């Protein structure tokens, strides 16, 4: 197994763990945490391809990972704000109970 394949497998496993969490947890904050894990797994893929790719001096994968980190930070802030707003409205963070679109 090449080093690149090792990193890709770790990233795939982390992505699957995050997906399982996003699909099975009831707490909305835990779903957001799982989505963050999936984003991080994608970042690991980008960095691994940058490191073992044919043109690492172009910095493409690294730049993509840095922008991805910035976008993920914005996503976390807005997502947690939405969770707090929903909690204030419905007094729960259980997404199995959030089955109405009308307030």
């Amino acid at each position, binding site marked *: 197994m090449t080093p690149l394949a*090792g990193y890709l497998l770790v990233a795939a496993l982390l992505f699957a763990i995050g997906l399982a969490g996003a699909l099975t947890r009831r707490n909305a904050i835990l779903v957001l945490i799982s989505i963050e894990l999936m984003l991080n797994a994608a970042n690991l893929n980008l960095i691994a391809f940058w490191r073992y790719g044919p043109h690492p001096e172009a910095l493409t994968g690294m730049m993509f990972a840095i922008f991805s980190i910035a976008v993920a930070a914005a996503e976390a802030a807005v997502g*947690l704000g939405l969770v707090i707003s929903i909690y204030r409205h419905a007094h729960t963070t259980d997404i199995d109970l959030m089955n109405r679109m009308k307030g």
Partner: protein
Amino acid sequence: MGMIFYVIAGLTLAGGLAAVLLKNTVHCALALTVAFAGLALQFLELDAQFAGFAQILVYIGAVAILVVFAILLTRGSETPKDGVFSRTWLAGMAIAAAVFAVLGWAVLGSTQALPVPGGAPTAAPTATVMQIGNALMGRYVLPLEIVALLLTAALIGAVIVAMHEKAGTE
């Protein structure tokens, strides 16, 4: 593929598993921090120093703290009566296992198609902060401006969404 890789990969995956499986939400947030730290170590091992330290600053320093704040503000640390997993947890696990099976099959089956066939290039690529800064101010200046706009919009949007409603606006 030395010993260090396996240690860091095990740490990252254990942190991720604990973050998804633990019952107490605060413990989940702490396990998430461990997973983020493991990923930062993997970035450092891949010679991506800037991305590794950005990971530590942004994820451990900001996102994990935000998550803990959200848990405390929503009293999410109380374990619900009817379990922490959704009713359809079996289908979710099956989908995640299927996704991992497909990804693993693709990675292991395509070693010949990887960018450098014989494994790693011998010399580690150099990505100094100066090079990254030059790239950000040169070739990537438009994405940088867009990210700046996005972060400003996200900042204002998060504050407006989470702001207390005035008593009179009900």
